[in-house]
């Protein structure tokens, strides 16, 4: 164990001192094909949060809490949209300061114009790259809500969106994608397994623990057709998320596209069969949950693995999270309402680690995994996952503690029993009676 830690530290240090990460010297030049695709991909990822995630989570919630659940995704997207253009983008993707954070030089995107092109995406307008990255930040924040619903004050959620995006998302996004220390180390994260899913999943777990259990800890979906619709939109939008992460309309985008679909389908089936075996019946909730877990797990791997890798990652992603949510969660007793940790945290971690095994240089020369002769890659993935988990746990704990001081985290008992739709918003989801 000591040796492993030493090796990891050594790698981290040697990685920081000089190893240049695939920084090819292409001159920035706008490509209309790439631009067209990235505009579409950006819109696809936006669709994942509203209405994709909003419907997925909203349908899983109790009827009396469904609007509040939907509102959490809506407001997260809106808040992040504003903060991103004020300071979020520049902190995540600005000029690197010692591997930790971007230099906040251009607030309100000052200095960026219609002819600007980012170093990180050299064939599309920087404006498109900014919005594309914005949609990632937004869904990451929104994902956390799954663990917190049916008891959190709406005001506390608004504060969470602001604080957590700033203190947790921006640094990690910079470390992995913005030229920070994990990027220089050679961590492979094609579309955000670490930045999005581990990040959100760990915050979800910390949040569930900090908020405490709901008074009624059941998860009986009030509308499974909504859940299925939401899962379908997530799957669809995920093509923008993963294939779009190639940042070009090219063969790599094609690989990411087909891997994404393959892993989602494998996981939908493996969850269905494992559930059939253990709970006697195949459920639509299981198939949809499996698909989402598969999409999460393939996210870091999408542009690195071949089709066999995608199938295996998918199968694993349908099985392990099932056991975590069905067996481990009840035993440990934390109340992760909609399994944001169980699905995103677990499948995200699996995906990040499996990328270190299955990355095939024939798909993408930037990544060579253990099965292709590079055991170091697996250690780098392990280190990345470890660093992210430790950092995000601490920061999330800190953020929840601050919010508890500022506004309190939970609604009171009566408000929880009436339902958050009524108590927080004064609205009802269904007014079918006159």
């Amino acid at each position, binding site marked *: 164990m000591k040796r492993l830690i030493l090796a990891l530290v050594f790698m981290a240090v040697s990685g920081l001192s000089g190893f240049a990460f695939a920084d090819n010297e292409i001159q920035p030049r706008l490509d209309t094909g790439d631009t067209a695709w990235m505009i579409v991909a950006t819109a696809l990822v936006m669709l994942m949060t509203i209405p994709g995630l909003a419907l997925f989570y909203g349908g899983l919630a109790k009827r009396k809490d469904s609007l509040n659940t939907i509102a959490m995704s809506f407001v997260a997207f809106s808040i992040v949209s504003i903060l991103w253009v004020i300071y979020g983008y520049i902190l995540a993707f600005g000029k690197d300061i010692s591997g930790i954070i971007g230099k906040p030089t251009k607030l309100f995107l000052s200095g960026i114009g219609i002819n600007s092109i980012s170093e990180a995406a050299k064939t599309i307008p920087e404006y498109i790259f900014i919005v594309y990255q914005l949609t990632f930040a937004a869904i990451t924040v929104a994902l956390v809500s799954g663990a917190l619903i049916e008891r959190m004050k709406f005001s506390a959620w608004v504060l969470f969106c602001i604080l957590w995006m700033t203190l947790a998302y921006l640094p990690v996004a910079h470390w992995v994608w913005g030229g920070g220390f994990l990027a220089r180390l050679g961590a492979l994260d094609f579309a955000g397994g670490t930045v999005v899913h581990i990040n959100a999943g760990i915050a979800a777990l910390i949040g569930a623990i900090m908020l405490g259990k709901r008074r009624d800890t*059941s998860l*009986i979906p009030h509308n499974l057709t909504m859940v299925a619709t939401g899962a379908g939109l997530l799957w669809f939008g995920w093509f923008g998320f993963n294939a779009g992460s190639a940042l070009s309309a090219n063969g790599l985008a094609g690989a990411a596209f087909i891997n994404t679909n393959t892993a989602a389908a494998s996981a939908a089936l493996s969850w269905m069969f494992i*559930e059939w075996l253990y*709970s006697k019946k195949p459920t639509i909730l299981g198939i949809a*949950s499996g698909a989402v877990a598969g999409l999460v797990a393939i996210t870091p791997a999408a542009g690195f693995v071949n089709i066999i890798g995608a199938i295996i990652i998918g199968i694993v992603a349908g099985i392990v999270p*099932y056991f975590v949510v*069905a067996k481990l969660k009840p035993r440990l007793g934390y109340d992760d309402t909609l399994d944001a940790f169980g699905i995103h945290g677990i499948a995200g971690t699996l995906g990040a680690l499996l990328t270190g095994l299955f990355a095939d240089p024939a798909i993408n020369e930037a990544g060579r995994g253990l099965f292709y002769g590079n055991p170091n890659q697996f250690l780098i993935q392990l280190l990345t996952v470890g660093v992210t988990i430790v950092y995000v746990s601490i920061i999330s704990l800190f953020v929840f503690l601050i919010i508890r001081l500022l506004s309190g985290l939970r609604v009171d008992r009566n408000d929880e029993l009436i339902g958050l739709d009524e108590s927080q918003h004064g609205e009802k989801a269904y007014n079918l009676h006159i």
Partner: protein
Amino acid sequence: MKKIEAIIKPFKIDEVLQGLSEAGIICGMTVSEVRGFGRQKGFVEVYRGREYEVRFLPKLKIEIVLSDELVEKAISVITERAKTGEVGDGKIFIFNLEDAIRIRTGQRGEEAL
């Protein structure tokens, strides 16, 4: 005048309605979706591997008002048509009814039916 309240299995409603119509017994009926339990046990639903016992089962409650002489016939039609022979087929309750008023005309008693 009597009021009949019958709790039946939801999928039996069409047969019951057809039976009552063919027998010429009714010219009106109120149906509501209700939930409850009797001797029939609930069932188990599983969401993400966790089991939830559903104790209140969905049933339909039909309410009809008719003249005394039609009551026995209505009972036999409902009994015959709503029966599956298994636990949970439901129950029929008979009430004496004091009066009935048709709102449009103000007619009272059996004329209002």
